């Protein structure tokens, strides 16, 4: 993916007392029901090195950082009205008691330097309870790089507090339908950069990101039959991979990125195959007269979850990667489909029919511990995990049309990324990390 941060150079602050992450540090389980959001304070930044005192960035930068952290659902920004006046330079000692007393556990202070077109922003993250600096960074770039710098430091904060950087640098692809034509669109995690990626003028669906994020596979009726295509995002080139009469449906990619699961009806009914993308080698995995669709790999590549109605109704099954040891995973409900394997490998999200509608559920890989995640009025379908396993995108309903929503994997913090607008938005697919920031 193209780097939008070509001119951002970051210098690590060599602060003597900057602690390294302790080996074996235990992070709070942010997805546990007992988790309480991190209370964080984000006061105005100060001008660095005698720069213009009136720049609006002094308020804007901590504001944008607060928004970014709020998006994750893990943070609660303490109201600025509660802050004591503080006009310290970065070098002065922080008066941690001032912040503890208003309920903050974490604090970000920083400074801005604007010199013509050059922009420098310095950020420091403090643990207010323990009274120490957790992370510090100074980014130097151009005017316009503010968002990149803010998202980069948000990643630092998430890394320090939760053990992983977050998913600001990811996009969600989805199918947008209008007037009986559908195309693939993408949108970033924060809801920005909404873009149309295909221009087929026909039914286009089932987008699946490649493992390195450089390609999207999809199925389209460009030549009158649902054929399988591969779109190279940087070059815009599209290659037709499979086009036998009947279904050629995309499925999950293998973790090493070399193979794709494909649903084909070439042998008389819908079966699951693997397609080695470079060689074209096509190997059959399932062998059953029932419908077998929606195949997806586990994150270690050793198992495949899919949907079959071989037991009388659509249910989720699991098999080994060679097609052996097929076993049923869902036993509750009459219609369970759209399996999505969590990146950590231990849970499967899916859509299950309940009360006449579909909602998102998660379960252990062996089928136990089923949890209902959504209770949407218009139903919820097609779950897709973020690459860090902390969020699930799904297709909801807004004003009678499909909308793309994101929810934390514990069912909280629902956000609508695209909804109620022009397109009927369905079938979200979450990209890997794209190095956008």
């Amino acid at each position, binding site marked *: 993916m193209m780097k939008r941060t070509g001119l951002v150079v970051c210098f690590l602050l060599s602060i003597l007392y900057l602690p390294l992450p302790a080996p074996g540090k235990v992070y709070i389980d942010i997805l546990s029901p007992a988790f309480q959001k991190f209370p964080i304070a984000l006061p105005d930044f100060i001008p660095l090195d005698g720069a213009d005192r009136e720049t609006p960035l002094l308020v804007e930068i901590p504001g944008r950082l607060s928004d970014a952290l709020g998006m994750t659902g893990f943070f609660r920004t303490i109201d600025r009205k509660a802050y004591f006046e503080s006009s310290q330079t970065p070098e002065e000692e922080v008066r941690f008691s001032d912040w503890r007393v208003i309920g903050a556990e974490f604090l970000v202070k920083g400074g801005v330097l604007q010199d013509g077109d050059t922009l420098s922003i310095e950020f420091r993250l403090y643990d207010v309870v323990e009274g120490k600096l957790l992370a510090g960074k100074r980014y130097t770039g151009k005017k316009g790089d503010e968002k990149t710098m803010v998202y980069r430091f948000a990643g630092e904060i998430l890394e320090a507090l939760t053990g992983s950087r977050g998913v600001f640098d990811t996009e969600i692809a989805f199918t947008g339908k209008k007037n009986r034509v559908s195309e693939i669109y993408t949108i970033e995690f924060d809801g920005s950069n909404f873009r149309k990626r295909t221009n087929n003028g026909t039914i286009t669906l089932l987008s699946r990101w490649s493992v390195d994020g450089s390609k999207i596979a999809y199925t389209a009726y460009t030549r009158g*039959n649902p054929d399988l295509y591969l779109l190279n995002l940087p070059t815009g080139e599209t290659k037709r991979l499979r086009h036998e009469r009947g279904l050629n449906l995309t499925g999950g990619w293998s973790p090493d990125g070399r193979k794709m699961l494909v649903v084909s009806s070439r042998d008389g009914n819908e079966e699951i195959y693997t397609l080695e993308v470079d060689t074209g080698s096509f190997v059959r995995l399932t062998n059953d007269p029932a419908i077998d669709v929606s195949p997806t790999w586990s994150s270690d590549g050793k198992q495949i979850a899919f949907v079959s109605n071989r037991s009388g109704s659509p249910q989720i099954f699991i098999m080994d990667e060679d097609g052996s040891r097929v076993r049923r995973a869902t036993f509750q409900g009459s219609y369970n489909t759209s399996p999505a394997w969590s990146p950590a490998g231990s849970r499967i999200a899916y859509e299950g029919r309940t009360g006449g509608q579909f909602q998102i559920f998660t379960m252990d890989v062996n089928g136990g511990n089923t949890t209902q995640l959504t209770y949407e009025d218009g139903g919820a*379908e097609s779950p897709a995990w973020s690459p860090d396993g902390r969020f699930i995108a799904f297709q909801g309903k807004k004003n009678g049309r499909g909308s793309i929503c994101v929810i934390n994997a514990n069912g909280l913090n629902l956000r609508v990324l695209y909804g109620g607008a022009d397109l009927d938005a369905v079938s979200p697919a979450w990209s890997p990390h794209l190095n956008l920031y």
Partner: protein
Amino acid sequence: MRKCNLFRGALLIILCLAVALVFGCGKKPVMKEEMGVIVKEPVQEKAETAVPSETAIQEERLKEKERQEKERVIQEAASFTDIYFEFDQYDLTAAARETLKQHADWLLANPGFDVLVEGHCDERGTAEYNLALGERRAGAARDYLLSLGMEAGRVTTISYGEELPLDPSHDEAAWAKNRRAHFVVTPSK
């Protein structure tokens, strides 16, 4: 017996005399013979101009009949009714079989046409599962047509899953209309 033969003989003679009388009377010929002028009835000429126009009229009538026939066939081809399915089912109902039988009858009587069977679903459930379900619905209709005598080469199928609903509303009535197989009849290539 001698009496009959005599009677017969007498009748024959009278008949011969009558014929001689008729033909011997000198019936006037068709051609008039007037002094100095022989007027030929232009029978020949009339015949030459009458034949093309007669043919033209016949051809015109034939073309019109053909055109009407073609239109009737096209209208019938376009008016193949859909068949419907239960939720998550691709079994043919009795009503569906009845409709398919009518379609088969027409297609067998009109060998110059092929049929494409489209399989469709309502919007509930995933796009992938519905593409497969649509394929099953089209396949079930096709199999039944073949069992009624249709040649395999004249029936093709395609699935559109939930992508092309007939009724875009989000209620049970719309969903029932969308769970269908649709028939597109076209002249054979």
